[in-house]
């Protein structure tokens, strides 16, 4: 009788000790896991010196992500012509999500549909959570968000997070670019092509003064500034 009581107490104590130990281990593991996951921070460079304005990126994006006609996740804005015949030239700049680290669209979203993926730093949209209030469209300083006429949810470039990236491929626009004007990669990996190109070239980002910390870099084609 006494023996069984002792055994019971011992057993329960051991059980509690084990449980607390295991939960401690689990939290430590989780913390380490989170740390490891955040080693990826995706960014993109658009090298305007290489872009020829063929719009293969637009076509590929539309096909891969099933973007309906009339709206687009990426488009190439063309300005020009500059220079004199027969040496006229144009400027092409990519208009798409800048994947801000401090994204105004995410900050204003009342339902949590707009979010930053913790693993990759990609700004994305949960279509099923979106109620279509369009706060994000108003808040985005880069004016690249739109309501998808099919899903009726806010939509935008997500670096092909759900399509090409999920299959271990590069984003559709990057794969389609014939002149290799688009470079996609991990900002935190010093050996990645992205970081190498960033180190070797002067780059610009749009509206940095707003503090949005965008991750779409441009290599400017020619001086567009006032020359003094």
């Amino acid at each position: 009788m006494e023996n069984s009581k002792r055994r019971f107490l011992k057993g329960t104590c051991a059980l509690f000790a084990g449980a607390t130990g295991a939960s401690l281990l689990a939290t430590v593991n989780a913390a380490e896991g989170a740390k490891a996951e955040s080693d990826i921070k995706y960014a993109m460079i658009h090298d305007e010196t290489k872009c020829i304005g063929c719009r293969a990126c637009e076509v590929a994006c539309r096909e891969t992500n099933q973007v309906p006609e009339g709206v687009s996740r990426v488009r190439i804005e063309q300005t020009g012509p500059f220079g004199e015949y027969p040496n006229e030239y144009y400027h092409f700049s990519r208009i798409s999500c800048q994947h801000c680290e401090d994204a105004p669209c995410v900050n204003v979203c009342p339902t949590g549909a707009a979010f930053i993926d913790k693993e990759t730093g990609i700004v994305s949209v949960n279509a099923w959570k979106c109620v279509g209030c369009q706060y994000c469209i108003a808040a985005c300083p880069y004016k690249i968000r739109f309501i998808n006429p099919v899903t009726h949810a806010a939509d935008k470039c997500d670096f092909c997070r759900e399509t090409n990236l999920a299959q271990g491929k590069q984003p559709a626009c990057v794969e389609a670019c014939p002149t290799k004007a688009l470079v996609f990669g991990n900002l935190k990996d010093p050996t990645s092509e992205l970081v190498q190109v960033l180190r070797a070239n002067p780059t610009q980002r749009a509206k940095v003064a707003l503090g949005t910390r965008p991750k779409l870099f441009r290599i400017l084609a020619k001086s567009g500034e006032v020359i003094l």
Partner: protein
Amino acid sequence: MSKRQWLWSIRLGAIALLLSFGATSAESALQINSDTTCMKCHKRNGQMLGHHGQDAMKMTCSTCHGEKGDHPKKPNDIVVFGIKDGSELDTQLAVCHKCHTQRKLGETEWTHNVHAQKVPCAACHKLHSPTEPMADMTPKVRSELCRNCHSGR
């Protein structure tokens, strides 16, 4: 009954006759293709079925390709259009620029400006075929056309 069958066969016959007439007339209707000097040899590879062949334009083979000269002996002064085995770039461009001014071309399509005096028109445009490949291109076809030459990788 037999009368009705007979009527039907006449109707069908008439339709068939009309169709065959239409087909033959479409082939030989254009004045430019009745140029016996050229068509003697180039009936197969020289039929002009495109927009530039319409009678109202009053064009002949020599309007673009130049006078016969020593052709088919070589060398000759016939203008050959194409990016690979065509005549000199300036020669080819001069022919098209006789009618198409650079300013208007540039206004219609920006790619004319960036390719000016760098590629012959025939690199993209095909004048002899009944359909012009540059007309009504889908964005995909268009970007693939760019890729044919601009392949940086």
